[in-house]
């Protein structure tokens, strides 16, 4: 019998419904986001420092066109089952290492939906909001990061001998 996360789903996005995400769903999604730092060993970048920006993303994408709430709710449910059944370390590897879904027409199962519509966005959010420094420690800036200041105490990027 197929595991819950392997069940077939149409590739179309799931309907958002009328309700906002519950606290439990947000907590489950946050644990999924935190798992990115765990999987890629970017321990110098504390995901807690990204939480407000991540919440901003979640809120912004939970309304308007296209509304991701249906996918978020589904991802929270699938992630919970995976963690309960496989343990978190195994679930992390399964989602982030073993499941590659980069095109919409590949999103044909529950886990593929989670990866394509939610986890991939979380990865982009993680990188843009500071995760890039987990790979290149001295890097200062990245598209979407907006590091810097109105003031010129320090340059917004790594500089060299010539300025």
């Amino acid at each position, binding site marked *: 019998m197929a595991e819950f996360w392997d069940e077939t789903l149409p590739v179309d996005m799931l309907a958002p419904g009328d309700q906002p995400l519950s606290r439990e769903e947000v907590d489950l999604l946050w644990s999924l986001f935190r798992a990115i730092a765990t999987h890629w060993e970017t321990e110098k970048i504390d995901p807690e420092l990204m939480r407000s920006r991540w919440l901003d993303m979640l809120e912004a994408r939970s309304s308007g066109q296209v509304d991701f709430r249906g996918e978020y709710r589904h991802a929270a449910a699938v992630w919970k089952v995976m963690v309960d059944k496989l343990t978190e370390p195994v679930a992390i590897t399964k989602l982030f290492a073993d499941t590659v879904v980069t095109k919409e027409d590949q999103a044909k199962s529950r886990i593929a939906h989670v990866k394509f519509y939610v986890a991939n966005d979380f990865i982009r959010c993680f990188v*843009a909001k500071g995760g890039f420094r987990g790979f290149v420690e001295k890097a200062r800036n990245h598209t979407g990061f907006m590091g810097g200041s109105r003031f*010129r105490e320090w340059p917004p990027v790594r500089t*060299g001998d010539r300025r």
Partner: protein
Amino acid sequence: MTAAYDYVIVGSGVAATLVCDRLLEANPLTSILVLEAGERIPARDRRSWWDLVLAKRTPYSITYDDDKAGGESQESYSVGNVLWTFKESRVRAYGGSTMHWGGWSLRFKEEDFECRSRTGRGADWPFGYSTLEPWYELAEQKLGVGGALKDEGPRRRWGYPLPAYPWSAHESELAGAFEKHGLKPGHMPIARFKRCMTTGTCKYCPIGARYSAQDHMDALLYEPAHANFHLKTGAPVRRIVANRNRVNGVEYHDAMTGEWLVAQGAKVIVCAGTYESAKLLLASTSPEWPTGLGNRYDQVGRYIVTHLLFSVEGTRKDNPQGWFQEYDFPTLMSRSWDTPEKQADGKMFVFNNRALPKIEFDTLMMQGKSRKEIDEIVKGPRRAGLSAFVEEFGDPQNRLSLAPGTGKFGLPKTRISFSRRNPARFMATVTAAQAKLAECLASLGYERNEPTKENPRGDHASGVCRMGHSPDSSVTNGNLAVHGIENLFVCSNAVLPNAAAVNPTLTLGALALRLGSWLAEESR
């Protein structure tokens, strides 16, 4: 239905905004109607910002020209011996192309105003650099331009309003190679309206840091003192209504009511970008002007020109520092090939490739690469690139004209015939320049990659309503008034007599401020 205004302005980009800025500064109660064919696209909008960061989707790409050959929706046609690229070259929305520009804000140089006299090619301006210099200063202030006074460029009385962005580590290394190869490195002057100090803000800015005409125009619209200042979006103008040597207003479509309306204006200013400015004149026929306004001598649409953007890329075997392009814009440039000595063969403006070196952490992660694999990629081969614009010269055989039908904004379709008289010679010049830039990269250990084919992009199109002294060789005079029509003005890149080697927006801004101030003074 009619309405009467002191000024009816067609278009809502940087030119329209800066003209309005001056008119309203002089008299806050001036009555102005701005008509924009496109709509307001989101700015300072969190959702749109996240859509860009997460899905790399921009809110303005839906406004781009559809130039897919053969389709019913095709809006623009290239028919010369050189393929003219329309795609992604202009934004048709409130704010115009400043909604997607990079903010590069360079002055033309003294010799650019005397191109014909100095080279026998192109055209002279009806005035010199010194006439425009104070307006360049004001434009730099209005746009919030950061730059370095010591860098190469035309004469300046003062420094830039804001300091230059420092070169990134990668650009710092490239700057050293520039010096060894006869290119004096400089800092790209960039317009950052509200002093943005960072990156991630270039394609689309959520905080209004990059100068956009929408931001600026909004500030003018929301000023309570400007009681007679109005803007309508979704209002394509199909013709200017003329009576002999005067215009009375414009005929436009009101998207709200579906009606065609006439907006009467004492003066009409066409600020609709190069393509639409010329097309509007051509479409505005009358018994006195059977081939279009200002077109008695068949000058409207001729001399179209733009910049060819050419590039060189190379790859070196390693990237020990894990460099990637932390800015999303180039801060390294050189004007050493933008000189009087180079003018006859076409000046060039050199700059760093904004996107290189590139490490796409997110893509690698989505592909399931492990930490170890990503670390190896980060330290592995590194790509770098240099690019340049090359100046081309206005040629009467090259022209923009009306194509049958209308496109998605209710504007006439576009046909551009662009050919080079001696393409082999032109491309030989480009190839030689590419070889020199490749030497630069080679000195830093980059092995040259295969070159790609280069085509002119329409981003910097100009020349089709060029300024001049005589109606048989130009469309507008030095005050941007259409020859033979006393109350019709064109203020867009269409009026530039030559393209020089650098981006035209700051020059257009200077012209717009000059026009707005002149009109305000004249009305006193």
